[in-house]
């Protein structure tokens, strides 16, 4: 089983995440902490920021993995995320009078549902209407951006957001505790989902069939698997995860909605998915790297690094993304049937 999981680029991603943790432990617990620049680079605050920045990327990448593993290219994650964010916000503003927790949970469910509907729309456009999947994804992005900005009520205010829940015992571990075990619920959920998606993809019937459908749909068809049904279901679940990423932004990270607030995170998620070689853990590592570059930007500004223009530091995440995706990690291999319409009697094979 190993070979599908431990591809080189996954290893690199996971290595990056481990490197950060080890450095953080060393820098914070040993005499290395006397060096200011090390504290800037690997302090608890940098790591906290990293995690917060990477959660939406992780969820977005998982969304992409579910769709693409079944053969549907999902370039519309950005749009599904934005739709989820906006839906979560509208739900929250309309339930401000409810008890906080029920209002938040309700809003998360709405974000999931709207993301799922966007995924379903993408599936219908690309399967039923055989639209080019890149175009269909673009339609999703434009639809979400246009609708959310048209319907956005500037006076609406969401009251309250998810707050941190320290896990007893674990959160007392030095360095790792405050970074990993003292977070709001959606963060835990996202990390849990990485494990769930991994296990589901590689150790369940559903996962085996999903991967077969994305690699060689005709082979799946010849053993009686309904190819397009798997694609509909996966793309819809993928949409839900992207919607959850949007919900995270509004209901846990920021607390409010802003127009275009996803700000390219959907695309960086795609990069994380590719960098992680379509594997959940690989994507987690890649998302951590991208999140870290965003954290760095923040930490360097806070530490008063002014001799580098701010704009250059802001470019960091994108530069890392480009380098990562341009084959620097060696060859990644997308699902073979990605982007192709499947019809049983189509073609002369």
């Amino acid at each position, binding site marked *: *089983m190993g*070979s*599908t999981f431990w591809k080189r680029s996954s290893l690199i991603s996971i290595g990056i995440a481990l490197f950060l943790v080890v450095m953080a432990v060393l820098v914070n617990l040993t005499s290395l902490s006397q060096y200011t620049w090390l504290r800037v680079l690997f302090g608890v605050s940098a790591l906290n920021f990293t995690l917060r920045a990477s959660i939406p990327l992780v969820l977005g990448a998982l969304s992409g993995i579910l769709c693409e593993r079944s053969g549907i290219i999902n370039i519309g994650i950005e749009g599904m995320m934005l739709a989820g964010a906006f839906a979560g916000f509208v739900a929250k503003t309309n339930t401000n009078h409810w008890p906080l927790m029920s209002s938040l949970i309700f809003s998360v469910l709405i974000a999931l549902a709207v993301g799922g509907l966007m995924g379903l729309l993408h599936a219908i456009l690309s399967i039923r209407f055989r639209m080019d999947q890149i175009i269909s994804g673009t339609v999703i992005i434009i639809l979400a951006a246009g609708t959310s900005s048209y319907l956005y009520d500037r006076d609406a205010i969401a009251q309250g957001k998810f707050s941190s829940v320290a896990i007893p015992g674990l959160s007392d571990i030095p360095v790792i505790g405050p970074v990993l075990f003292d977070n709001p619920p959606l963060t835990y959920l996202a990390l849990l989902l990485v494990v769930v998606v991994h296990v589901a993809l590689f*150790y*369940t*019937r559903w996962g*085996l*069939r999903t*991967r*077969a459908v994305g*690699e*060689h749909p*005709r*082979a*799946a*068809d*010849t*053993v*009686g*698997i*309904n190819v397009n049904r798997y694609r509909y279901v996966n793309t819809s679940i993928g949409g839900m995860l992207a919607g959850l990423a949007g919900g995270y932004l509004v209901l846990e990270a920021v607390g409010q909605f802003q127009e275009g607030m996803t700000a390219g995170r959907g695309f960086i998620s795609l990069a994380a998915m590719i960098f992680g070689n379509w594997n959940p853990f690989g994507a987690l590592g890649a998302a951590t790297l991208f999140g870290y570059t965003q954290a760095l930007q923040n930490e360097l500004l806070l530490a008063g690094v002014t001799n580098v223009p701010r704009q250059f530091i802001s470019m960091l995440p994108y530069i890392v993304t480009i380098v990562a995706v341009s084959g620097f990690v060696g*060859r990644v*291999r997308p699902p*073979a049937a990605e982007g192709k319409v499947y019809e*049983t*009697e189509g073609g002369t*094979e």
Partner: protein
Amino acid sequence: MEQIPVLEARNITKRFPGVIANQNVNLTLYRGEILALLGENGAGKSTLMNIIYGLYQPTEGEILVNGKPVQMRSPKDAIALGIGMVHQHFQLVPVMTVVDNVMLGSESVRCAFLNREAAAARITELSERYNMAMDPYALVEDLPVGVRQRVEIIKALYRQADILILDEPTAVLTPQEIEGLFAVMDLLRGQGKSIIFITHKLKEVLRVADRIGVLRRGQVVGEADPKTATQSSLASLMVGREVILEVEKSDAHPGKAVLEISDLRATTDLGDTALAGVSLTVHAGEIVGVAGVQGNGQTELVEVLTGLRTAKSGTIRIGGQGMTNASPRRITEEGQSCHIPEDRHAFGMVDGYPITDNLVLNTYYQSPFARGITVNRPAIEANAAALVEKFDVRTPSVHLSGGSLSGGNQQKMVVAREFSRPIQLLIAAQPTRGIDVGSIEFIHQQIVAKRDEGVAVVLVSSELDEILALSDRIAVMYKGEIIDIVDRDDATREGLGLLMAGVKEA
């Protein structure tokens, strides 16, 4: 005693847009027999089998299993009825293991998780029972073609198939592997399984079948008894007229060396070694056949020779000029060489262009077809009219798209274009793959005619019969190397088969 057929197809008709693939086909299969279904490429064999397997829905007609009419909406229904099929193009996911491929769709599951151990144990048991060794945890992409085929057979047996359809299973095997397959088929028949064995190779049919059915242009044109039928009687039944099974050619008179390849090395797109030091010299007026199981570097060799792939090292000289990593245009112009590509749709023609334009793809920029920056339509049309006539390309009009021609006529069009300028070297890759017998005969004659004019010919083919029929010398490729070169007169099928499997006698 009247026996009930395990499988019966009655009056099956299948229409695709513009094609009738099967027309009123009837077929019966009895328990414990091997029924061979013979037919040319395009005769409708695969379509009929896909209908029996529930993958395609028949336009008309019905299927009976054990005497009862059945409705099959998808392969799931066929599998439930005990029908298994090994497809012409293997239906295996390359990046998955044997276990995953075999159990896909019929997974064994324990508390919601895949139970790979249980499935692997079944596979091992089946592979021992039927004498088809395999490692359940090997990745399919790492397996040789012969083993992949066994995986396909195991896949059907895993689902407890009693009726086994084998669609052109021998096309991709070496002669020795074919013998192995026949032994397995015998074993299966002995256990009461019924087999439909599809092929277009006559020898094989006579060797294993209990009964023979012949399909031509979608219709069953006859049955034959392997005890009384001969290769030529089957051939004329299959093609509908007398066919000459041998290509007529005189002895070769090789001249000076035209193509000189020395220690050529190249990699596949994925960076794996494809050519591991190939050296070969081809002289004017001889045909050198390059034999080998598909995927042993033949494709890459042709690509490097035609300028479509870069060589990592080594040299190529054509007519004495260095042509290593030269551009395709330089190779065609200065090297005076031409190329009949393996995949005509990708490299040989533009499906959407009219025949007229397809016939000048290699000369459109030259006089008389180009006048400054414009094209000379009348010259292009005159050229097309002449070539279509000379090369027997059958079409109602030269203005129809190349893609609308039948496979054989498309290939004749490609050959016509490539032969329309002076050449000293011909590189023909699988020149008759998937085309009708008439066109095969024609193209073979044209290749021999070029040889007799003094052209050096490299013929790459995975059909041993074609290699044996045309070549003057035969080079066998194995794992990116030419493992041996033998004279046609010294070559035997068995000897070549062993070489193709990498076995070289001292």
